[in-house]
């Protein structure tokens, strides 16, 4: 490894990085500006409302219960796939990832469209289910959607545990359940914290599920307030509350992890683990996995398919094609923009890992953590007050998507850069090429894969993105996601189905890409 002290970046590169960070922070800045336009008593009246406390309560309740439910699903799933010897373990591992391919609003759609006298159980089995909605509906859809984040983290932590630790505990007189409680679980804490952070951030920024289920959290209230339009200041404040809550979660996570840096002590190679025989508990295991798969994939997708065939005779092919084109025509430029913005940040972070370049890189992740509705609102304020020519244009939406998904582009570009060592560029220099040509001819070709992967991630994410598109799309723009949401919101389940299936195709591609990328970097 190269142990040299990181050298400072050349100033044009650093300035570019600073400019990109500015673009990421701009919407948050405008949100703050707009919120503090209110003064004195008006401000007090906005901030100290009972409604805020109720919204905070609702948001926290949802966040905590989703986390608990996701844990209850993810922990056993991780244990089954990492620690037991059971037929079909690889398939089960994969099935645990499937919910990632279903955007939350489609999960909500699947569940909503299941109930009532027209729902598939009523039509096919004569079994009318009550329609889930509100808190319980949101809880169900969100915990199913987000448990894979916990599952992935817990699973890889379990695979990484040194089996000798458990044997040591056994030789010190611990029964198997005591070993799990005293040795295994405490060591999963960092992984759990990382997964929980993702779950909480996603719950905070979720708009699709709570709006369709009509459960009033900060983000749903923000949307209602924004649509009602008479009090934009209050909308800005709701956005700020949402941001503040996100910031609190990020800070708590950082604190928690700081205390918890667990190193593996000792240098010996870990002995490979003996898997537990499922034995008599096999039916229980299969039953649990079956339930999870049913609720996370079979039921929602089945329900969407049912409605698709219900309305199969009257599909508006022209409308579908138009909105597919609309989706592509914002997602593709967003993907290119995101990668163009990510490249300098990644280059700074990898080649000049100084404190300041690390901070610049972090802002990209901040853009990802910021709830999309708050970003959208900030950009509306920005366009209205500083750049009216951008208001309700495709450019503004592309910009929003690019900064929101910047972190997704950054990951693959970074890992590609790590593989293209500076020595390559240096040898190009020693062969007589100038710095820019050296980069173009030695490094860039090696970055290609990373750049393409980054673009693909941002493209596929943008295809299914809802809140940014919803608030910022030009008036005549009807992307797939906006079409689906609008139709489900009006309970036009059959009409929503073709759009939903189109989105499912793109989000499945996303998960497939994620899998191949993970395999490549491993």
């Amino acid at each position, binding site marked *: 490894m190269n142990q040299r002290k990181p050298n400072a970046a050349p100033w044009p590169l650093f300035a570019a990085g600073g400019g990109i960070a500015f673009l990421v922070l701009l919407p948050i800045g405008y949100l703050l500006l707009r919120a503090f336009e209110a003064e004195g008593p008006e401000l007090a009246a906005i901030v100290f409302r009972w409604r805020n406390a109720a919204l905070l309560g609702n948001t926290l309740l949802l966040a905590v219960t989703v986390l608990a439910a996701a844990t209850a699903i993810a922990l056993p799933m991780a244990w089954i796939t990492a620690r037991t010897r059971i037929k079909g373990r690889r398939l089960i591992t994969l099935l645990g990832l499937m919910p990632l391919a279903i955007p939350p609003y489609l999960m909500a759609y699947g569940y909503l469209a299941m109930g009532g006298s027209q729902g598939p159980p009523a039509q096919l089995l004569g079994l009318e289910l009550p329609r889930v909605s509100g808190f319980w509906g949101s809880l169900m859809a969100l915990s199913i959607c987000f448990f894979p984040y916990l599952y992935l983290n817990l699973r890889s932590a379990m695979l990484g545990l040194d089996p000798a630790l458990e044997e040591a505990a056994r030789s*010190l007189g*611990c029964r198997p359940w005591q070993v799990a409680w005293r040795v295994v679980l405490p060591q999963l804490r960092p992984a759990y914290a990382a997964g929980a952070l993702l779950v909480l951030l996603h719950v905070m920024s979720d708009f699709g599920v709570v709006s369709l289920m009509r459960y009033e959290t900060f983000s749903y209230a923000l949307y209602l307030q924004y649509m009602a339009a008479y009090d934009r200041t209050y909308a800005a404040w709701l956005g700020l509350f949402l941001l503040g809550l996100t910031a609190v979660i990020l800070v708590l996570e950082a604190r928690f992890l700081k205390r918890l*840096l667990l190193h593996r*002590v000792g*240098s010996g190679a870990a002995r490979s683990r003996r898997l537990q025989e499922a034995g008599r508990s096999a039916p229980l295991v299969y039953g649990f996995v079956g339930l999870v798969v049913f609720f996370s994939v079979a039921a929602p997708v089945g329900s969407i398919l049912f409605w698709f065939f219900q309305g199969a005779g009257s599909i508006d092919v022209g409308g579908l094609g138009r909105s597919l084109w609309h989706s592509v025509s914002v997602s593709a430029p967003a993907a290119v923009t995101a990668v163009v913005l990510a490249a300098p940040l990644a280059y700074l972070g990898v080649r000049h890992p100084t404190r300041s370049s690390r901070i610049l890189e972090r802002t990209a992740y901040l853009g990802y953590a910021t709830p999309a509705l708050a970003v959208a609102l900030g950009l509306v304020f920005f366009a209205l007050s500083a750049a009216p020519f951008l208001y309700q244009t495709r450019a503004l939406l592309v910009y929003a998507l690019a900064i929101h998904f910047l972190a997704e582009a950054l990951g693959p570009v970074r890992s590609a850069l790590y593989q293209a060592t500076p020595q390559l560029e240096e040898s190009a220099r020693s062969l007589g090429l100038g710095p820019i040509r050296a980069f173009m001819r030695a490094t860039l070709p090696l970055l290609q894969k990373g750049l393409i992967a980054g673009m693909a991630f941002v493209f596929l994410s943008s295809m299914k993105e809802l809140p940014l598109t919803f608030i910022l799309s030009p008036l005549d723009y009807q992307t797939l996601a906006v079409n689906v949401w609008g139709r489900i919101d009006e309970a036009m389940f059959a009409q929503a189905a073709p759009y939903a299936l189109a989105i499912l195709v793109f989000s499945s591609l996303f998960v497939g890409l994620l899998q191949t990328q993970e395999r490549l970097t491993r």
Partner: protein
Amino acid sequence: MTNLLLQAKGLWKRFTRRDAPVLRDVSFDVGEGEIFALVGPSGCGKTTALRITAGFEPPDAGTVALRGHTITGGRVHTPAENRGIGFVFQDYALFPHLTVLENVLFGLHQRPHGEARHRAEEVLAMVGLAGVHDRLPSQLSGGQQQRVALARSLAPAPQLILLDEPFSNLDAALRLATRHEVRHLLKEARTSAILVTHDQEEAMTMADRIAVMRDGCIEQTGPPEEIYHHPRTPFVAQFLGATNLFNAAAEGKRAQCMLGHLCLNRQAEGRVLVSLRPEQIVMESPCCADGPAGEIMAREFKGHDQTYRVHVGGSEVIIQTHGSCPWRVGDRVALKPLEPAVILEHPHDGGHAN
């Protein structure tokens, strides 16, 4: 031997059906208060034997009994936590989320809190770690981690401690000091131990008795001196230190080989393979000796001793002398054995006989 503590009989183990067995009919026993070493090259099955004793792996066949009670064998498999056998892992396996004191307290959970704490502090003081109770394992040096691991397994006062290559992660200087210290601690606590190591010197300095393993079999068991001076097979002779192997024609307790006449350690007739340690041969001026003379090809001076390589009758003999031996490269010398040569059992593969 004193009272028998542990007895392993006829252990067989095969991990996958395709591979050769890692243990073939391995038997050994350990007395009360005895330190026993399983030594052999990597892959010889010594760690597997240890893990079967601990209860981490079941054998395919064979039994393990502790104080006469079967703990492994047939349908019996006492879980590791009920054996009262401590285990010190090669990479220590300290719990990274617990402090030093909590690590040592871990195995004392069945005792009342005050007593457990007292015992943990006592053991930590015993291993010389009284000052670092509240540190995390990652904040300790390798030697300190090693001692925490030892303290942790000693704390519940097990009847037997198993040590799996416990010194291999320490640097050379620390290793010597720690070996001595650990032997002292075990003897003081009157705890029996089985040590697994690939380092023959470590086995000989630490253990009261040694079993040399090869390819899943124990080739010889006995006290270090006996095994060193009377190896039974060429492998044991060569594994425990440098040696010279010769083919010789035996006639009673004497034999004829390329060094001339030899004394043998026992009666034999006909062709035999014998071993002579390098320090058991001296060099003399060729004029006053009766054996064949050879030429010194190389000399490694190491301070308090030196090693010579002497060419005799078409092959090379290694000789170990003190540091002030006057012979130089190119000198012609006669070789004279000081001790009777040891007759080895003819090995399956022939070894490197000269």
